[in-house]
């Protein structure tokens, strides 16, 4: 009995920590959704692009780890700059759907550029953190939890705290929330939309890089990262598209439930339900709570 309970705990904790990896990806989506009211289909490509560049700097040019990370982050700022200038600005008066389509195109461009620049083979990314159980926890708590998962958890926590402080207490954060509410009114009082867009896309790029590092260390830096990032979709549906805490909680819920379902219900379906179980959960949320757990309710004055 005790063993079973321990096993269950292990499944849940492992799932929760794996969920923070989803949260990291989802954070990038939330940032852009807040400012542009658009689901950024290129977020997955941004993850792939950034982490591949990071690997490329380290492995092809022998740039030290820290500098390679900074270079890759700067590169994502440049990507943000170009996106604002060449994609968003010409589409400024276009509908949200048009921008949505543009992000799909942007995704293809980034995927292509990344592969043209760095090649198509799978790269190994060594962060110096192993993807195996931490001995100390295994000995003392009898739980087998990967060091990489724990790192992802810590990194995700730091990022959410950082972003929360940025939005709540800085001027540019206030500007971003104003733009998220009513871009026209924001520009009428002198909030420059292009600065906000630039900030948001750059921030989303850096978040993509961090998420890419975590995923790359686990699964290898490869094209599959692009599709993996779409796992963030059910996370966002559950957490709410415009909420940073929602991205985190949504990630945790998805991570834990998919693991628990896989272990306890999976066998009845012949296994591998991890892939689609989160989407089933998302459907239930769409039916009963479409704005997600933390999404901004549509406020109507009556």
């Amino acid at each position, binding site marked *: 009995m005790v063993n079973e309970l321990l096993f269950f705990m292990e499944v849940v904790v492992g799932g929760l920590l794996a969920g923070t990896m989803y949260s990291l990806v989802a954070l990038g989506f939330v940032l852009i959704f807040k400012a542009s009211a658009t689901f950024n289909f290129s977020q997955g490509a941004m993850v792939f692009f950034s982490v591949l560049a990071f690997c490329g700097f380290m492995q092809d040019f022998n740039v030290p780890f820290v500098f390679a990370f900074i270079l890759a982050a700067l590169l994502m700022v440049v990507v943000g700059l170009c996106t604002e200038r060449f994609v968003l600005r010409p589409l400024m*008066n276009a509908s949200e759907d048009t921008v949505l389509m543009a992000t799909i195109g942007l995704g293809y461009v980034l995927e292509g550029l990344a592969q043209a620049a760095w090649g198509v083979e799978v790269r190994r990314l060594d962060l110096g953190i192993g993807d195996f159980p931490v001995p100390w926890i295994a000995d003392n708590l009898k739980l087998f939890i990967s060091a990489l998962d724990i790192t992802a958890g810590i990194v995700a926590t730091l990022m959410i705290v950082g972003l929360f402080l940025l939005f709540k207490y800085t001027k540019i954060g*206030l*500007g971003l929330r104003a733009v998220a509410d009513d871009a026209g009114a924001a520009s009428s009082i002198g909030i420059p939309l292009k600065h906000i867009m630039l900030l948001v896309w750059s921030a989303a790029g850096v978040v993509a890089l961090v998420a890419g590092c975590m995923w790359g260390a686990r699964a290898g830096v490869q094209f599959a990262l692009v599709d993996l990032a779409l796992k963030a979709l059910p996370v966002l549906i559950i957490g709410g598209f415009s909420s940073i805490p929602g991205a985190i909680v949504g990630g945790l819920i998805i991570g834990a439930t998919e693991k628990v379902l896989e272990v306890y219900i999976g066998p009845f379906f012949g296994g591998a339900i991890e892939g689609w179980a989160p989407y089933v959960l998302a459907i239930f949320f769409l039916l009963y709570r479409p704005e997600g757990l933390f999404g901004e309710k549509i406020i109507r004055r009556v």
Partner: protein
Amino acid sequence: MSGNTENILDIKNIEVVYDNVILALHNVSLQVPKGKVVALLGANGAGKSTTLKAVSTMLASERGKVTKGSISYDGTAIEKQNPSQMVGLGMVQVLEGRRCFGHLTVEENIISGAYSRKLSKSEINQELEKIYSYFLRLKERRKSQAAFTSGGEQQMLAVARAMMAKPKMLLLDEPTMGLAPQLVSEIFNIVKELNQKEGVSILLAEQNTNIALKNSDYGYIIETGKVMLDGTAQSLLNNDQVKELYLGISKKGRKNFRDVLKEEETSKKKNKKKNN
């Protein structure tokens, strides 16, 4: 309105076209003297909002374009400016329909108005107190989410937010839309006070002709994109045609200026015939 007074805003013969085909303004000229309140009056679709947006350069975001004429504000031609540059120059528009940031608190809304200014925390607090001294109601509701405040409070909030940018000139687009008469006069009192104490020049688009003229120095009446009549507020209030058409003091049914001009023309022709 030419001569010795210095104009902060000078619109000369502008034509505005939306989507390259829809002619919204046709040869509109208008001046706002420094420190005065000018009312722009007319029915729905007359071109009031379009005129204001042409001035604040917000037209571009609605696929509108000034195709003829010129607008100069405080000595600068505004053609090459964008909305945030205009705010930097001290011209702020309060958009039609209030447009407060619903998910932000009242206080955050007001502070967001200072975005274009480089202020320290303590300076922002000073400015806030000054704004609250004009808008007492907002101080009581400072912590509530803007979307949950009343229509009147939202209108005050929109004006307060604009004032936070320390404008030299305010463009108010239908500030009294959908408000109870008591609130309408409350808002106009505040506007008047801002004009007198802060020296803000104001261009005001309104449908509520009576109260707008009572609180303005000068008025323009536009219909279907053309200025039909202009004059000092007092002269417009006493003008028989304005009385009949816009103030509802008439025995006959509703008409507009075009009908009046037609009538005048036909009566002229009749007179000519008689004379012949």
